[in-house]
């Protein structure tokens, strides 16, 4: 399967985009609507004119028509041919390439079996559910054994449970077939679940290209940080294991208890919404409770974000408007924070040294 290189691609919002996708890799293009994700897919597929160069294994494809690029493209709307039944939809590319009838039958049968839709072979798309349509579209895209698979928000029309199930199957399938795959989504959780690496695209340019954990814990720019939800990211100075699966890390003097198993923890992260804030001291004893001073209050959409200085560290918290209005929180006032233990994400040290405390 090819190693893909995009060089200085210019098209619509995409300006001078360069990107490399490794052989057999599943790269997720992550970004807001209108960021240029689908445009990039269309460029790779040859469905749009563009400036720059698309290179597969060192061979430029810029003058190669879409029909000759050997790409499997799963469109956001799936675009199954309504006048063809499931088997004919899947067989479409094979017929277009004038493959022998017997071979087409075998290939279609094996794909129907692999995707567990053999019983649907003679149904028309209008009689399929969302998940079934998605499988058929995937089968159609895979039928001619493409070198590259492009998936444009393929789960966007499915309910959460079906999408989760299909994502797992898709990931497994991609691993087995080893097809170089580009998966477009605007959903961070989906991206983290699927990706070998994530390319965060913002306003037509690649802001960061890294493995999922690295994107989350080391966002390269404010745009990336904002996109992933602007989590509080804290460096850990040292850690000690309290019991099996529970450790205490020290972040700039703050002792924070974290659920974690594995290597040493280098960073922890927590979304602002996962830090409980109050103007009065919560009753009872508990873990991860801190007292600090409010240093900033910002109104963001339907919520309020507060910066709270706790020792050397600044933590950002978030709470709904109506709750904020009921509290006496303002700049300079004292605030009590509780960090939700189960919501704290950890980034393991990739090096060998463990900073045990």
């Amino acid at each position: 399967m090819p190693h893909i290189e995009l060089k200085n691609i210019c098209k619509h919002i995409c300006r001078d985009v360069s990107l490399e996708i490794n052989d057999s890799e599943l790269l997720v293009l992550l970004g807001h609507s209108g960021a240029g994700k689908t445009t990039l897919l269309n460029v790779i597929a040859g469905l749009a004119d563009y400036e720059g160069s698309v290179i597969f294994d060192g061979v430029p494809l810029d003058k190669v028509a879409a029909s000759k690029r050997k790409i499997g493209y799963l469109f956001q709307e799936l675009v199954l041919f309504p006048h063809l039944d499931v088997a004919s939809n899947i067989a479409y590319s094979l017929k277009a390439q004038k493959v022998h009838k017997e071979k087409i039958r075998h290939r279609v049968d094996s794909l129907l079996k692999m995707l567990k839709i053999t019983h649907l072979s003679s149904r028309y798309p209008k009689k399929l559910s969302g998940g079934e349509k998605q499988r058929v579209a995937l089968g159609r895209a895979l039928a001619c054994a493409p070198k590259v698979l492009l998936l444009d928000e393929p789960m966007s029309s499915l309910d959460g449970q079906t999408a989760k199930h299909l994502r797992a199957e898709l990931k497994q399938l991609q691993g087995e077939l080893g097809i170089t795959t580009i998966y477009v989504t605007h959903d961070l959780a989906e991206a983290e679940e699927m990706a070998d690496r994530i390319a965060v695209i913002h306003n037509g340019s690649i802001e960061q290209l890294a493995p999922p954990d690295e994107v989350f814990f080391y966002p390269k720019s404010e745009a990336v940080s904002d996109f992933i939800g602007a989590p509080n990211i804290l460096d850990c100075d040292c850690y000690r294991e309290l019991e099996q699966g529970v450790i205490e890390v020290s972040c700039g003097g703050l002792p924070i208890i974290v659920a974690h198993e594995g290597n040493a923890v280098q960073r922890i992260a927590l979304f602002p919404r996962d830090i409980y804030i109050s103007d009065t001291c919560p009753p009872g004893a508990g873990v991860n409770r801190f007292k600090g001073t409010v240093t900033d209050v910002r109104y963001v959409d339907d919520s309020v974000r507060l910066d709270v200085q706790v020792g050397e560290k600044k933590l950002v918290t978030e709470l709904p408007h109506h709750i904020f209005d009921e509290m006496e929180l303002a700049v300079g006032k004292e605030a009590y924070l509780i960090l939700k233990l189960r919501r704290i994400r950890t980034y393991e040290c990739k090096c060998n040294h463990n900073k045990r405390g």
Partner: protein
Amino acid sequence: MKWLKKLRPGWGLLPIVIMLVLWEVIARLELFPGQFFFPPFSTVVQEFYYLTVNGVLGDNFFSSLGRVLIGFIAGSIAGILVGTIMGWKDIAHKALNPIINMLYPIPALGWLPLLMLWIGINELLPITIIFICSFFPVLYNTVTGIRNVDKDYIQAARTLGASDARILATVVMPLALPNIFTGLRLEAGMAWRVIIAAEMVAIPTGIGALMMKATNTMRIDIIIVCLIVLAVMCLSFERFFAYLEEKVTAKWR
């Protein structure tokens, strides 16, 4: 209750039966001024029988049918071909659309005086009229059908390795079929209406000509026979294409 469902199509005939009975009664009771101007239904049936037995109706009917079939088939094929080219190729659309837009509103019968001078009064005249009557609407519907096909289907077929010709044949034309069938269905009925008018005005044979002769001899029963034949043929042609459309597209629409 299945037998009730089976009976349902029969209920559609009931208003027609009631109308025929009323017609017979009104004519027999001479509620209209005389049976001469408003013959009873039974007289019309009797005349239909005579005209059929002596071959007059058959000869004229088949003359009209032949003209309609030749003109309609040729016009439709030409309409689909030109419409396909115009729908698929932008340059053809840009070049031909203004001309089509200018000619399409002219009623088919509006061409009759010109064609009488150009072609003369012979078999080609009604066939040409039917050709024109069928060509423009079928062309218009074909162009609309093709241009309305979602571009995503074309893009999808392209990424699946299909050539332009294959995309046209296997994706675009099948998806444009509902529109094309609409054109064919409407024009199949219209062709009969136009041929009758053309035969009444300019051609000495056919159902229209028979009607004209009946008018001259004040044979109202024959006129009504001709009108019934016309109604049945219009309906049959339209129903045939509706059936064909259903057969071809219903399973996926």
